[in-house]
């Protein structure tokens, strides 16, 4: 299963660098691939579904923070989905939601402790937004809608797609906000004598950039589902 996931990542990276033919048509048409592609783009959690907005805004003032938050969420989502899928025949239907919450909280705790131990500056920069992955609606959403009815391998691919889509969105937002707010990219100063756009660093900038991104994505590919929930 690990090899399957690895090829999935490699293939996605290769496809992304050759945009001439739509990504969805170039990938092998198996169920796992379709899930992966659908989750990365068509059901992109940030720009399509308008889910998990707190970390999307709170952790994207710098590109590196956005990417770190996305990867932390990716790991927690994949681990939770695989656990839920592996236990799907054991968990009684009546108590499944509390059980999923505890599984997710367990994995998020592990990610949080790992970050605090090995990457303390990053952990301090992200603050409470890593623990808040627990209430990311799409983590529970993938567990409930997909992992509870599918095998662990397929669930891992599904969660990986959502996680990659989320990481991509957060990194993109971080790049724009850091470039305009600090004149730098991943901490490297690009423009000397850049007048910082203070609005990009403060909360208001986060709302404006996400709002414009949502509008742009919807304008260029009007299909798909535009949501917005709890």
């Amino acid at each position, binding site marked *: 299963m690990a090899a399957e996931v690895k090829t999935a990542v490699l293939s996605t990276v290769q496809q992304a660098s050759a945009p001439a033919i739509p990504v969805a048509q170039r990938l092998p048409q198996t169920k796992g691939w379709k899930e992966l592609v659908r989750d990365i783009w068509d059901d992109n959690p940030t720009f399509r579904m*308008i*889910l*998990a*907005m*707190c970390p*999307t*805004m*709170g952790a994207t003032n710098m590109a590196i923070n956005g990417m770190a938050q996305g990867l932390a969420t990716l790991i927690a989502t994949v681990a939770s989905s695989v656990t839920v899928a592996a236990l799907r025949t054991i968990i009684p239907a009546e108590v499944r939601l*509390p059980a999923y*919450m*505890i599984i997710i*909280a*367990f994995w*998020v*705790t592990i990610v*949080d*402790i790992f970050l605090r131990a090995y990457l303390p500056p990053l952990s301090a920069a992200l*603050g*409470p937004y890593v*623990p*808040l992955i*627990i*209430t*990311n*609606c799409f983590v*529970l959403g993938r567990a409930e809608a997909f992992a509870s009815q599918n095998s662990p391998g397929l669930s891992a691919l599904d969660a990986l797609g959502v996680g990659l889509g989320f990481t991509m969105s957060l990194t993109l937002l971080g790049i724009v906000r850091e470039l305009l707010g600090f004149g730098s990219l991943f901490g490297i100063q690009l423009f000397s004598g850049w007048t910082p756009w203070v*609005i990009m660093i*403060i*909360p*208001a*900038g*986060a*709302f*404006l950039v*996400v*709002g*414009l991104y*949502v*509008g*742009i*994505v*919807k*304008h260029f590919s*009007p299909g798909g589902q*535009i*949501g*917005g*929930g*709890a």
Partner: protein
Amino acid sequence: MDIFLIVLGAILTNNILLTTFLGICPFIGVSGEYASASGMGMAVIFVLTMTLPANWLIKHFVLDPVGVGYLSLIVYIVTIAFLVQIVEMFMKRFLPALYNSLGIFLPLITVNCAILGGVLFAIATWNLGFLESVAYGFGGGVGWALAIILMAAIRERLRFAPIPEGLKGPGIALIIAGLMAMSFVGFSGMINIRDFGG
């Protein structure tokens, strides 16, 4: 006096939604109509005022003495889910009118990051005392409710405005929230809740 300042600070300077981005998903999803926005706002005030002190007591009298601080996230989220369930059952039995107006919003509250986020900011990041936590819970809830009610009122006015197709719905809502956040910047610096922490 401190308590009053914390309530005011939680509403204006440290607004839980417009400065710390907590609870944005329901803020975008439920702010289309004034009635449901105020229902959701009331539910958040109610639950945040209850869960913050409850989790404060659990942290200071159970988790810290026993030395299992690493379990805090799991315990907080279970406490929140449990309290929401209790509140729902209590309301259904004793306050049916309130239950009917809040009913559908209560279960959604468990996964509202404003609740867990408020708990984490007050207890873990700022390390507030007990009464300060109660004040922050209430003020934070009122601030969130204020923001969503303002937003719902603005969106009702926008219903017939000529908005570009792509921005209709969530896009314009986020941009309005950005403009609201900009106006709330005017309050910043007046009170800083961080100063009340230990």
